């Protein structure tokens, strides 16, 4: 998309501001929550959750991009989907890594398949890694189309898997201490700041990644003009 360079700078600036705000709110403003075993580690929450939500957003963009690409055939939709999937997988990896870190400190448990959120994030991660493997590095038109089809299938399978695992774990419950928690408004504000921060960060990273695609295309075009290097 042809937007002025200042736009990128504005996004980066907003991301930076909100990241600082989130860090401030998470670490300094919010007191140590004594309900938790590991109150310091709990502050990971203010980053872990926003990153997870933004990764869902990224995968939603993959779905939209894939659908639009199949509908209109315009390559830039496929490019958006591919770039978004990359960043989405990156963020999902953060979620999968920081979750157990927090879990180990708090509940001494690294992973619980009974928690549907964990399984869904894991499935999501697998599906979009599969998407990236399929899409690969080549720019062939056919590959893009196949990946788009898989992008749509994958996106639909996530809620299906969620429903299925939710039902399964409710019928066959495992007695493990659950981590429920009510959200105070201050925590909510910290969370909101985090979501805004990471959304801007995602947008910035996406635009940078799209720039790479553009440059690559230009380089390929020049190479062809010289005569197939």
């Amino acid at each position, binding site marked *: 998309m042809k937007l002025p360079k200042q736009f990128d700078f504005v996004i980066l600036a907003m991301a930076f501001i909100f990241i600082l705000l989130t860090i401030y709110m998470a670490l300094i403003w919010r007191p140590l929550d004594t309900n938790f075993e590991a109150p310091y580690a709990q502050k990971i929450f203010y980053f872990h959750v926003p990153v997870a939500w933004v990764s869902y957003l990224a995968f939603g963009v993959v779905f939209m991009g894939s659908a639009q690409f199949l509908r209109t055939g315009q390559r830039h939709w496929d490019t958006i989907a591919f770039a978004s999937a990359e960043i989405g997988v990156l963020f999902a990896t953060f979620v999968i890594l920081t979750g157990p870190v927090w879990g180990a400190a708090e509940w001494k448990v690294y992973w619980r398949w009974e928690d549907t959120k964990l399984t869904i994030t894991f499935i999501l991660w697998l*599906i979009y890694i599969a998407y990236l493997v*399929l899409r*690969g590095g080549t720019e062939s038109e056919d590959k893009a*189309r196949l990946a*788009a*089809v898989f992008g*749509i299938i994958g996106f639909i*399978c996530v809620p299906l*898997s969620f429903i*299925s695992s939710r039902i399964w774990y409710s019928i066959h419950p495992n007695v493990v201490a659950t981590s429920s928690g009510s959200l105070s408004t201050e925590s909510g504000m910290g969370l909101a700041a985090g979501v805004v921060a990471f959304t801007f960060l995602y947008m910035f990273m996406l635009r940078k990644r799209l720039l790479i695609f553009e440059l690559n295309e230009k380089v390929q075009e020049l190479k062809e003009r010289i005569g197939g290097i």
Partner: protein
Amino acid sequence: MMPQAITIAQKDIKTEFRTREMIFSMVVFSLLIIMAFRFAFEFYLEESTAATVSEEVLPLVSPILWVTFCFAGMLGLLTSFAKEKDRGTLDGLMLVPMDRSAIYFGKVLSNFFLILIVDIASVVFFSLFFAFDYTGNAVPMFAVILLGTFGFVVIGTLISSISVNARGREVLFAILLIPLILFTILLPSITATSLALEGRIMDAQVELRLLGAFAVIYIALGYLMFNFVLEE
């Protein structure tokens, strides 16, 4: 569209039974998988303190069977499209003036039939290697296997049509398919089969409904998306 799909399915099945090479490989593969599981669980079975052989094997039946179905089945699913693409017969099929989804439905039917044969063979092999008696539960178990296999084949056919066009098709097929079916097909099927084997098939109603619903959703998905996969 359905008559054309049935014709395609018949063509596939007849071709397969002429040489029988694919179904033979799939059955042998399932035999090897069951054998591998038998030896993998040797220690577990030795140490088990259950009263009868059937009792100690019971928790293993369903998972082992379904893993076997899936991996042996993936072999067949991929080969069915690979054959067509490599020999150019897929292009021939696309030239026929019919709704291209008929190709998809035809493939689903033929794959379902062939994989069902492999499933039955696996069930027999399992009872041989693990000395397990299905007793009165064979019929409900088989009903669950039918339903689960159908869902598996429906989504598997679509994904195999995607992966057959890309490089590294076998591995790609597994990478694409398994995350999709883990919770939607595998988990409900294994649970329902286990319950069926315990004689408690009526407790599995939720799982069976899930399997049915997902099969329908996957068919709709296949119908909608298959044309995009075949586009040139």
